[in-house]
């Protein structure tokens, strides 16, 4: 089953009330599969074919605000077209869920995997959870509403996977039975909603300066609260699935001298490199970031406290001239935590540029030099760039 099929399967099991969506590669298959399921009577979600992604997110907001559990799917420029509404949805504290199949933003025009779309939306107030493979995107989606709808949170959630690399790859997967999923996800009982005739309310009114800042602070608090909720939901999910999740996965990194920190499908490839190097007595390790929003900076910095050299890898260029988003945020967290490891930031895999086991081994080799000689070249570099 491909990553997109896994997402569609999870949507059928969750059975959200409404799905407004507009097709864009490589997420197109998701609304396509779900539409087929609806047509075949396998699920009774109301599908709204809209005329653009701006409308998809607006319709999603509207239905969620009305009190209906809502989902949508997009990628790349589609996510960019939603930009304005992303912020409105989050600040309106609407717990909707969006599956993002990560693809680079144009240009040059390209359809392949990159995290620049969702990373660009990292400050929009959405929770962001990333996956290494089909299994993880499926498991993450099943946990999404439990996090989003929690009374301490009430924020929208993005469930991300790498375009084509996992979205279009057929891989092994363990699916849950329908009944335990329905029981785990539960039914949606919104506390406040527009269709409640006993509670007349306005949504999205103008907030004057004496109130606006407090609203934003409350929203930031919800994001901080999400940390505990994400861990609690993961524990409950482990009890029914046997698969455990946290903010990040530590793969042979506890005693590692050289650690790569990365996000998404490349982590599987890096794990193979770690195993090969461990066979050669090189103490290599990987930390795979699953939750990027809220950012588990303190936890990550602590997990890296005994490393000698760290490579933070971004599948995204942020054009800051100073590195990618994961690099910037994690280095700041390591500074706060007074980590002593040398840390470099590496941009890789843009527009689907492949990352091989050999490439990953090359990064560890560079880390072993950095551990003894310090950072002699640039602190922020590109991997796999054609000279």
């Amino acid at each position, binding site marked *: 089953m491909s990553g997109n099929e896994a997402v569609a399967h999870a949507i059928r099991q969750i059975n959200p009330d409404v799905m407004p969506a507009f097709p864009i590669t490589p997420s197109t298959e998701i609304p396509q599969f779900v539409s087929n399921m609806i047509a075949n009577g396998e699920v009774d979600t109301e599908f709204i074919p809209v005329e653009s992604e701006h409308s998809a997110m607006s319709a999603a907001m509207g239905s969620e605000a009305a009190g209906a559990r809502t989902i949508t799917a997009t990628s790349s420029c589609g996510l960019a077209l939603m930009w304005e509404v992303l912020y409105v949805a989050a600040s309106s504290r609407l717990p909707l869920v969006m599956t993002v199949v990560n693809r680079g933003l144009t240009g040059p025009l390209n359809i*392949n995997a990159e995290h620049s779309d969702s990373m660009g939306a990292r400050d929009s107030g959405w929770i962001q959870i990333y996956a290494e493979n089909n299994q993880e995107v499926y498991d993450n989606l099943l946990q999404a509403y439990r996090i989003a709808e929690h009374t301490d949170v009430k924020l929208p959630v993005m469930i991300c996977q790498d375009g084509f690399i*996992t979205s*279009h*790859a*057929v891989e*092994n997967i363990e699916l849950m039975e329908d009944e335990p999923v329905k029981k785990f996800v539960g039914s949606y009982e919104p506390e406040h909603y527009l269709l409640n005739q006993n509670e007349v309310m306005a949504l999205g009114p103008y907030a004057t300066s004496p109130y606006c800042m407090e609203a934003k602070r409350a929203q930031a608090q919800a994001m901080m609260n999400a940390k505990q909720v994400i861990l609690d939901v993961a524990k409950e999910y482990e009890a029914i699935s046997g698969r455990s999740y946290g903010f990040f996965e530590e793969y042979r990194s506890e005693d590692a001298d050289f650690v790569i920190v990365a996000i998404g499908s490349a982590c*599987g*490839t890096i794990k193979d490199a770690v195993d090969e190097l461990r066979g050669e007595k090189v103490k290599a390790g990987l930390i795979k970031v699953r939750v990027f929003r809220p950012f588990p900076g303190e936890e990550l910095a602590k997990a890296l406290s005994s490393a000698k050299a760290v490579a933070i890898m971004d599948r995204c260029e942020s054009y800051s001239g100073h590195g990618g988003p994961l690099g910037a945020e994690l280095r700041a967290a390591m500074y706060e935590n007074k980590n002593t490891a040398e840390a470099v930031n590496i941009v890789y895999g843009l527009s689907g540029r492949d990352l091989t086991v050999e490439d990953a081994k090359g990064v560890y080799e560079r880390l072993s030099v950095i551990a003894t000689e310090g950072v002699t070249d640039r602190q922020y570099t590109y991997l796999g760039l054609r000279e």
Partner: protein
Amino acid sequence: MSELVEIRWHGRGGQGAKTAALLLADVAFNIGKHVQGFPEYGPERMGAPITAYDRISDQEIRVHSNIYEPNYVAVVDETLLHTVDVTRGIKKGGAILINTERSSEELMPELNGYEGRIYTIDAKKICDCTLGQYFPNTPMLAAIVKITGIMEPDRFLEEMKKSLQHKFARKPEVLEGNMKALKMALEEVRSNSKTGCSQN
């Protein structure tokens, strides 16, 4: 088979190379293998060269990169021999399967000095005999199963029957032709001679 088997498919957009790769992964999954089947996308258009990949193993597969040193290569369209370096990276002991009516001896000079095993299959002829329409991926799929030894041919046919019955639930009439094409391909894949319409 305990080790990882890696297969690279070369075809042209619309010929079903990607579908063949994904079907192979599905069938191998059904017999309990760990699998990965994925396409490499470029500008998608009919007729443009496309590449797809399969990894099949008894162990969990974590790597998410393309395949540069495959055990096997399957070429769905022989006109690609002139434009794509199809034999690139083939592992020692590996093999290439080419859809052609020509013999492997005739093809040899077009394979950039490749010295490994060459298998051929005339998918056009098999399709003419069994399907009446040209879907080269069906015979190619059977042929690659045969030469890689990923699974027993009988088990493969059994799994394919189930899969096709499901896929063509609304068009049961196409099942028989497809099954015939698969069976014929299993017998007709050659390492050095031409195929004939022997099943008719």
